[in-house]
């Protein structure tokens, strides 16, 4: 597949010297659903604004379909944006909001009608044409914003935390709907969110960002199962992260005990981050266990129980379908391939 958008060595520095992006390079493939994921202030929205053209990078190049587009104003770029709080035009009704881009381009009236109707159908808003956008629910406004962008047939749709203002149930529905639209129209979607679950559900690939750097790029399963560093591991789902060291290949030592693992290639006794997902901690009888702890709290989470276990220097989060009573002592163990070993990164978090 071809790259539709490429960013090369993008740096963004504001007038006051604050660096928002510190050297971002990234290729986005055509017809992919890509998500920029990271905590607020990580630079994901800034990256999106650079692609849209609202912001010029301090240095670095932006390529669209192989052509350098630095300096091309937003209205001449073949991308459209769904804004964070929709930015619908309050003086126009639903129909006119969607038709806006086509009217600007002086598309014939007949074609405008046809394309707007297609969009209304696609986002399930037939019959709302005349409605003022101020009298729509949040979910409906969201649909108008998506239709208004897509009616222009952009090659790339940029979505800036579009579901942030919706309640949970509506958000789930819209996630599925967005994914359907993207696959139906075979477009490239670039989606910005801080919600890791949203990113895992919808994306073909995820770009995890923090503090102006890209931390990891990969498919949702890669990123979940093979986080490259402790930040990614912690940000994508809950994780138990403890300090450890690698005395030899396939052996890791943490909490004073040795465990078998599958990673190799570290310096002898190199200190590492050990990451274990809460659902990968196995509860076993205390007497057989290398590692024991006291259950501090139990919370029912619907499909599983979440337990907090105090063990010497560390607190462990455990997800299990069985609950152990608070105050009881339990043993813990891990399968070798559930223990993820990560090099300590110099602190760019």
């Amino acid at each position, binding site marked *: 597949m071809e790259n539709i958008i490429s960013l090369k060595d993008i740096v963004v520095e504001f007038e006051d010297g604050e660096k928002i992006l510190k050297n971002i390079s990234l290729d986005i493939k055509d017809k992919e659903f890509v998500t920029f994921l990271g905590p607020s202030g990580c630079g994901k929205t800034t990256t999106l604004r650079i692609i849209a*053209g609202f912001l010029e990078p301090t240095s670095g190049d932006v390529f669209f379909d192989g052509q350098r587009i630095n300096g091309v104003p937003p209205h001449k770029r073949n991308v459209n944006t769904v804004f964070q709080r929709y930015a619908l035009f309050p003086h126009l009704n639903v129909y006119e909001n969607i038709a806006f881009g086509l009217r*600007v381009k002086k598309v014939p009236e007949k074609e405008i009608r046809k394309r707007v109707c297609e969009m209304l159908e696609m986002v399930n808003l037939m019959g709302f044409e005349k409605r003022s956008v101020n009298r729509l629910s949040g979910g409906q406004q969201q649909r108008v914003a998506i239709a208004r962008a897509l009616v222009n047939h952009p090659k790339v749709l940029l979505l800036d935390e579009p579901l942030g203002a919706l309640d949970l149930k509506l958000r789930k529905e819209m996630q599925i709907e967005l994914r359907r639209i993207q696959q139906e129209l075979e477009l490239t979607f670039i989606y910005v969110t801080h919600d890791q679950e949203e990113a895992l559900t919808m994306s073909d690939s995820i770009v995890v960002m923090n503090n102006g750097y890209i931390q990891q790029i990969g498919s949702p399963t890669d990123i979940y199962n093979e986080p490259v560093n402790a930040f990614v591991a912690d940000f994508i789902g809950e994780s138990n992260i403890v300090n450890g060291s690698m005395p030899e290949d396939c052996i890791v030592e943490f909490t004073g005990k040795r465990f078998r693992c599958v990673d190799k290639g570290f310096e002898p006794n190199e200190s590492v981050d050990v990451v274990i997902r809460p659902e990968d901690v196995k509860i076993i009888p205390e007497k057989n266990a290398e590692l024991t702890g006291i259950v501090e709290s139990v919370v029912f989470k619907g499909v599983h129980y979440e337990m907090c276990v105090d063990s010497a220097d560390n607190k462990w989060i455990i997800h299990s379908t069985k609950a152990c009573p608070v105050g009881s002592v339990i043993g813990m163990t891990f399968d070798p391939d559930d223990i993820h070993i990560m090099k300590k990164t110099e602190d760019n978090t």
Partner: protein
Amino acid sequence: MKLKYFSAPYLAWMIVFILVPLLMIAYFAFTSDNGEFTMKYISDVGQYANIFVRSIWLSLIATAICLVIAYPIAFILSRMDKHKQGTMLMIVMLPMWMNFLLRTYAWMTLLGNNGIINHILGMVGLGPVKLINTSGAVVLGMVYNYLPFMILPLYSVMEKIDKSLFEAASDLGCSSVSTLFRVVIPLSMPGITSGITMVFVPAISTFIISRMLGGGSNLLIGDLIEMQFLGNAYNPHLGAAISLVLMVIILVIMTVMNQFDPDEQVLM
């Protein structure tokens, strides 16, 4: 005690000093000295058609100029950093706090035949040019005095327009010019209409500006009314009739303006 009775003193005041006086204008306009109904004074107003036309024309020009000058200013102000906006707005509005007689007097001394402008023109060998006592001077006076009335409502509407709407327009293919016509102007329409009324009403009814800057030859409706009540031409019936016609003209113009101001629209 019911809370609505708190308004009783004001209601009495309102009836005696707002409602009754306005009804008296209507009464005087349609009656003669001995209290009989007559259309004489209303029809007499027709004799002053030229003054009405001049007033409407000059105040329309002044309103248009105010709009053209104020629009970019209001836009620039509304897009400044938030903490600068307050100070800048104060600087723009400050001259309005001077009594408007003094502001008009300032132009009287500037434009006068011995004024500083003619003095400078004389030094470069031009002039003296007749600046004061012209209709141009009257329009200038109106623009100078009422410009802030145009800036303020425009600014307060534009300040509420979310910046992301401009980005959305640009994202959907608008150049800055088409963003202006498709987004900024439609969204600032309420400010435009209230700015126009706030300039037009005082401009069409002024008698100070025309007297101080227009000399005797540029009488406006305001002068005409003033002359009927405090001038040599003392005739309150005719004065009331003219006032009534003036109110009707303003009512008509405001109704027309309201057509451009869809009230169901709520600014976000």
